[in-house]
C-alpha cells in the first residue's frame, strides 16, 4: 500500500514527493537514513536492516534522499521492507539541503518514540537495533551511541593511499550520526539538527544536548560497519572541502577546541605537515630548519607498518599524502576566514 502523507516540511518549495507504506501502530523506534549518490550502498543498508533481530513490528525505516524517481523505484519499490509496510521514503531536491536538513526531514517523519540514525554508507550487524533499543530502555531519555568500525568486507581497500572510512569507540565526543539513537522528545526539545551547520551538525546537536544534562551512553555491542572508500587525490581533496564549515561548529562551541592540538589544529597531522612545509621552505636559509620535518616524516614512514615493504609503500605515498594534508589545512583556513574563528 502506498499513500501520500503530509509532513511539516511540505511547504519546502523543493519538496517533490513523499510516500508511505504504512503500519497503523506507531513503532518503538524509527531508523532515519539520509542518502545522496549512493543508491547501491543504500540498497545494501536496507538489506542489512531487514536482517535485524529486533521484532519487525517494533521498528520502521524513513529514508530521505536525492534520487530521481526511476532510481528510487529500483531501490525501494520491491524491497521487502517496503512490501512489509515498514519503509517510508521521500525525495528532496539535491540542491535543497545539507545532511542536517535531510535528517531533520527524516526524524520529523518518524513515528517512533526513539530515532536511530545511520548513514547510507554503513552496514549494521543484525543485533544493532536491538542493542540500541536495549540501551535506551536501560537509560531512558539519554542518547545511545553504538560502535562503528571499518567494514571487514572492505579492509583490502586500505591498500589505497587515500581512503575514507570511520571508526568510533563509544562514547565518542563527536556523536557521529552513523550510529546513534536519540529519544524523539530530545530532538523536539533541541529543535533537531542546526541546518546552518553544513558539517559537524551531529557534534553540535550532541553538545547542545549535553548542555541540557543529557548524557551520551555507550552501547558497544550495537555495531555498524562503515564503508571503506578509495579516493584519488583530487577527489579526496574536493570531498574534504565541505569540512571547512567545521569552523562554524567550533565557533559555536569553543569547548571543542579541547580536541585540537594546541587548541588550534583539528588533526595532529595538520600541525606536523605545516611544520614540515615551513622547514622545507626555510632549509636554504638554515639547514637546521629541516628538523621541523622530522615529526611528520616519522609519522608518515610508519603509517603502513614496520616491514621494509611497508616503509617503501609509505615513502611512495608520501608526496600525495602531504599534498592531501596541506589541502586539508588550506580547507580549514578557508573555513576559518569564512566563519571568523581560527581552527586549522
Amino acid at each position: 500500500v502506498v499513500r501520500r502523507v503530509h509532513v511539516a516540511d511540505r511547504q519546502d518549495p523543493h519538496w517533490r514527493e513523499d510516500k508511505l507504506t504504512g503500519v497503523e501502530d506507531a513503532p518503538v523506534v524509527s531508523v532515519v537514513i539520509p542518502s545522496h549518490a549512493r543508491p547501491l550502498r543504500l540498497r545494501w543498508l536496507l538489506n542489512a536492516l531487514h536482517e535485524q533481530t529486533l521484532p519487525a513490528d517494533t521498528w520502521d525505516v524513513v529514508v530521505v534522499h536525492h534520487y530521481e524517481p526511476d532510481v528510487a523505484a529500483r531501490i525501494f519499490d520491491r524491497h521487502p521492507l517496503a512490501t512489509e509496510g515498514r519503509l517510508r521514503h521521500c525525495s528532496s531536491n539535491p540542491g535543497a539541503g545539507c545532511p542536517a536538513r535531510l535528517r531533520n526531514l527524516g526524524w520529523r517523519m518518524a513515528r517512533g518514540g526513539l530515532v536511530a540514525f545511520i548513514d547510507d554508507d554503513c552496514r549494521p550487524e543484525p543485533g544493532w537495533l536491538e542493542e540500541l533499543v536495549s540501551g535506551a530502555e536501560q537509560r531512558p531519555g539519554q542518547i545511545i551511541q553504538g560502535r562503528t568500525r571499518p567494514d571487514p568486507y572492505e579492509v583490502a581497500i586500505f591498500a589505497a593511499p587515500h581512503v575514507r572510512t570511520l571508526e568510533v569507540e563509544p562514547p565518542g565526543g563527536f556523536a557521529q550520526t552513523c550510529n546513534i539513537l536519540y529519544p524523539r522528545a530530545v530532538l523536539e526539545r533541541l529543535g533537531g539538527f542546526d541546518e546552518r551547520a553544513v558539517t559537524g551538525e551531529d557534534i553540535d546537536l550532541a553538545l547542545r544536548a549535553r548542555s541540557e544534562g543529557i548524557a551520551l551512553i555507550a552501547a558497544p555491542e550495537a555495531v555498524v560497519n562503515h564503508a571503506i572508500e578509495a579516493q584519488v587525490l583530487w577527489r579526496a581533496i574536493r570531498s574534504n572541502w565541505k569540512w571547512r564549515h567545521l569552523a562554524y561548529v567550533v565557533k559555536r562551541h569553543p569547548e571543542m577546541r579541547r580536541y585540537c592540538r594546541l587548541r588550534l589544529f583539528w588533526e595532529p597531522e595538520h600541525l606536523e605537515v605545516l611544520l614540515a612545509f615551513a622547514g622545507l621552505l626555510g632549509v636554504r636559509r638554515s639547514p637546521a630548519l629541516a628538523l621541523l620535518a622530522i615529526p611528520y616524516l616519522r609519522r608518515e614512514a610508519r603509517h603502513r607498518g614496520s616491514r621494509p615493504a611497508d616503509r617503501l609503500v609509505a615513502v611512495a605515498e608520501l608526496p600525495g599524502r602531504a599534498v592531501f594534508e596541506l589541502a586539508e589545512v588550506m580547507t580549514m583556513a578557508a573555513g576559518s576566514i569564512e566563519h571568523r574563528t581560527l581552527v586549522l
Partner: protein
Amino acid sequence: VSALRVALVHHAYPSEPDVGVLARALAAAGHEPSVVAAGLARPADHHVRVVRVPHLPDAVLRVRKIGENLSHVPAAAVALRAGGFDVAHAFSPADALATARGSVLTFLHAIRRERLSDRRLRLAVLERAVERAGALVAPSPEVADSLSHWLGVDARILAAGDAEGHVALYQELLSATPR
C-alpha cells in the same frame, strides 16, 4: 532470422563452461559466435571461434587491491570495435567495460555481499556495467534473485544452452538500438 555475428566476451574462457555452451548452441542455430578472451592461445575448441586479445601486466592491480580481470579490457574493446559484430555479450562486469552501451551482460554466479566492494574499483565497475547494460541475464533463478536482492535489478533467466532465447534477446536489443 538472419545469422547474427555475436561476440561473447569473457576474460578467462574456457574456464567458465557456460560461455562455450552458448557459443556452440548459437553456432548450431546458424549464427556466428566468437569468443573474445584474454591471454595466450589455449587448446583449440574446434566448434568455437576464439579471438585472443593481449592483456597488460596486472600484478599492480592485484597487489594494490585495485581490481581483477581488468587488464584485457582495452584490447578487448579494440577487438570488439574492429570485429564488426552485431551484438556484444559480456560475462562479467569487468568484461562489460569493453562492450558498448546497450550490450548484454550475464552474471554467471550469484552475487555475494562480501564480494561486492572488496576491491578499490569493484563497486565502480559493477555500477557502470549494470548502468550501461542493455539487458541483464542470469542463468538460474538463484542468480536472478541475488541480482534483485543486492542490485535491485531484474535479469532475464536464460540457460546457457538456450540459443533461441538469447537470439530473441539480441534481436530485441538490435531493434531498439539504431545501428
